[in-house]
């Protein structure tokens, strides 16, 4: 990978929850400026934890980074508060939506612009989000808690975009979105990446789409990086194909046929 222009450099971090559960066992990854990097991996692999470690949201989960370093443009950021990071342009879209239940969709979005002081800019951003997600516009006046799962997901993404980020940590953006919207979301990602040079670190289960849109990928299992490479080469890897894309030698299997066999991932057993 091109390391000359690193935006984010995570170096061998370990994370412990509740003082007892060691979840990340030395994860290192890099996000160069203006790139889209994907973290892939199964349930509980530690994707979310990695993102939380970067955005410093671990504290609220009673987790802590016990080893390793995290650098943003060469600056150590482990001890910064999440809001400091947002000010430096790093914003996270949390897994599981986390919309502000009592606020309306529009208030949610505006709250996302907290760090932005320029009124015109805020209005423009709001417009931008509404054009990205027209569905939000029609639901702008409902309390977030009463919107559908997908609408909340759009709201969460839109809210993060309101802060003019330089880098977005996207945790499972596709979750709960209709296929069309998933595609749209990734188009938006690409769009922002190309036009506004926003970098993305995204944790995603929808490997197929994720690899299609990203430049580089890491595969995490059990708190360790087990594979990394250009998105293209990952997508061509046989193991990745089989376990993350569901394509084996003879093409995609029907979900009906997977019924009665099962193979463990090679690196786990």
């Amino acid at each position: 990978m091109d390391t000359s222009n690193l935006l984010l450099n995570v170096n061998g971090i370990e994370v412990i929850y509740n003082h007892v559960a060691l979840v990340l066992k030395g994860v290192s990854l890099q996000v160069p400026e203006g790139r889209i990097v994907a973290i892939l991996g199964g349930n509980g692999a530690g994707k979310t934890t990695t993102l939380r470690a970067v955005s410093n949201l671990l504290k609220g989960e009673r987790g802590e980074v016990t080893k390793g370093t995290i650098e943003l443009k060469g600056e150590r950021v482990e001890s910064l508060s999440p809001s400091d990071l947002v000010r430096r342009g790093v914003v996270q879209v949390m897994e599981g939506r986390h919309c502000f239940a009592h606020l309306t969709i529009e208030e949610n979005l505006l709250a996302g612009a907290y760090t932005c002081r320029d009124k015109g800019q805020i209005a423009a951003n709001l417009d931008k989000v509404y054009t990205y997600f027209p569905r939000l516009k029609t639901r702008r006046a409902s309390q977030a808690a009463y919107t559908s799962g997908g609408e909340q997901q759009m709201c969460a993404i839109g809210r993060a975009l309101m802060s003019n980020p330089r880098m977005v940590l996207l945790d499972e953006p596709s979750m709960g979105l209709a296929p069309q919207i998933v595609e749209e979301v990734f188009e938006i990602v690409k769009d922002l990446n190309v036009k506004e040079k926003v970098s993305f670190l995204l944790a995603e289960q929808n490997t197929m789409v994720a690899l299609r849109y990203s430049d580089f990928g890491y595969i995490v299992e059990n708190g360790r990086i087990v594979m990394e490479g250009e998105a293209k080469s990952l997508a061509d890897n046989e193991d990745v194909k089989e376990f993350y894309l569901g394509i084996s030698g003879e093409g995609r299997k029907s979900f009906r046929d997977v019924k009665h066999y099962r193979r463990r991932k090679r690196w786990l057993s």
Partner: protein
Amino acid sequence: MLYRENGQFKTSYAADQQIFPIAQDRLAIGLLLLVAFVVMPMAGSEYLFRAVLIPFLILALAALGLNILVGYCGQISLGTGAFMAVGAYAAYNFMVRIDGMPLIGAMLLGGLTATVVGVLFGVPSLRIKGLYLAVATLAAQFFTDWAFLRISWFTNNSTSGSVSVAGLNVFGLPIESPVAKYLFCLTVVCVFALAAKNLTRTATGRQWMAIRDMDVAAAVIGIRPVYAKLTAFAVSSFIVGVAGVLWAFVHLGAWEPAAFSIDRSFQLLFMVIIGGLGSIMGAFFGAAFIVVLPIILDQVPHLLGIPLSTATTSHLVHMIFGALIVFFLIAEPHGLAKLWSIGKQKLRLWPFPH
């Protein structure tokens, strides 16, 4: 001996569903009971019984009852003092109005009366939630405070409104000496703790917890919120009521409504939260913390010979106490019981760090 569960394979679900599945724990509890029932009565001083152990046991019982409501069923109550008072005054009335009413009978009837009142005040919980409910339960607190002062029938027309009991005995054994009182309380507490533990590890307890964690989802899987909430109120106020009887009859002997004031309610809530919500053991930890700590803090300057005025000591005790509460919450928001279990978990891993 290392604290390990390795090698202790459960061969039946019954074994797996024991209260203490780990052999070392069973041993420890056995020892603890031995000390409590045999060693203490021989070794303890009168002060220890009357000023520390008896209040500790009774308040632990009340905290246990409250924990069922708050910790297991998620209904915050600030009216615990009220239910203790109902238990105490009801038992008193059964005692003085029915000839030959035995102490145990009065105690259980007192508990039952508290149950009835508890369920009555629990009814709003079907509609009102969270902190709104918490504040609304204060209605029970202030109402009973008032009722036992104002309605002289409850106090058997005592002129001052304070009442007292004498000549307690159980099956002919007098409950007068500190040791007898201690053993009586200990027995009652053990019985109720066991019953509460049983409730909480079976379907009833799961229903409560389900309601606590997410009531809509609980309803969807077939738990009736009405039933679950009201049983929690009922069981909780029964235990709290019995604790009230013990507090009044055994600990104080003579009392006025102020013995069950709002301060008591808060104190019990402290115990439950500090000890650990949703943990039987937590009630004991919490009670120990809240009963014993101030006593110790109170004496420290004295013992060290630091000349501090009574007022200053007392203020310092307040400050340290408050700071410790915050400290423990920060260390472990789920209370001392959780801290304890994390400790054990670490012990299990020891000497490997993780």
